[in-house]
């Protein structure tokens, strides 16, 4: 099982214009908290939506929060009409967010983002301070655990810890 690796390779291979957010972003910034799904905030340009639909269909993406027998056509129009989607795919669970609560849409989320080279691809990862903001806004118990750890990492970076 190489879930996160497979998900990142999927993103990199299809050159999806997106920002990695959530637990995987936390892990890349140094968090030790486990996570299983990959959350991204995606650009909603027509070209990227077409790329996303093609990519998602190639890994048999299906909605996690809908009955399995519900007819669902995954194409650019479907993505354009919606905003946030939770998919189960052949490479693992993938959450697509058009908007990150507390941060904003793609343009606000990508602003000041970090860049990490992993598995031969370069990924855009939400800035640590914005990830903290998103986690505080979400405010679920698991987010508050992440907030406590991320605040320590952010403070350490503020006093000189290198990425």
């Amino acid at each position, binding site marked *: *099982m190489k879930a996160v690796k497979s998900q990142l390779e999927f993103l990199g291979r299809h050159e999806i214009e997106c920002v990695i957010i959530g637990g995987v972003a936390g*892990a890349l910034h140094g*968090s030790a908290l*486990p996570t299983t799904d990959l959350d991204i905030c995606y650009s909603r340009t027509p070209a990227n939506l077409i790329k996303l639909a093609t990519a998602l269909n190639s890994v048999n993406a299906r909605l996690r929060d809908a009955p399995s027998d519900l007819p669902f056509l995954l194409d650019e129009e479907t993505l354009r009409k919606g905003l946030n989607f939770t998919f189960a795919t052949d490479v693992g669970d993938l959450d697509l967010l058009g908007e990150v609560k507390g941060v904003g849409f793609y343009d606000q989320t990508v602003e000041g983002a970090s860049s990490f080279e992993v598995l031969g691809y370069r990924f855009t990862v939400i800035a640590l301070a914005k990830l903290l903001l998103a986690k505080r806004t979400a405010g679920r118990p698991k987010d508050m655990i992440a907030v406590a750890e991320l605040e320590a990492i952010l403070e350490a970076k503020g*006093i000189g810890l290198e990425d």
Partner: protein
Amino acid sequence: MRKEDEDYFLNPPPGSAAERAVEFGIDLTLTLENLRLTPEERIRKLDDHLAGIAWLKANARLKPPSKTTAHESS
């Protein structure tokens, strides 16, 4: 990693975010271990952890309590 960076996590300064994290229940030694790794190593470690959990789920079997304890059978 610089010694002062390690110290921040191992001996959190009073009033620091690290101290609050420890009080919240975060094991910062795990965080420090992760920070010593490259981003790619962090992802591989995360996957290894997930693989371990998946293996346990697939292989662990709940056994009914034994009537004879190890002590009694000796």
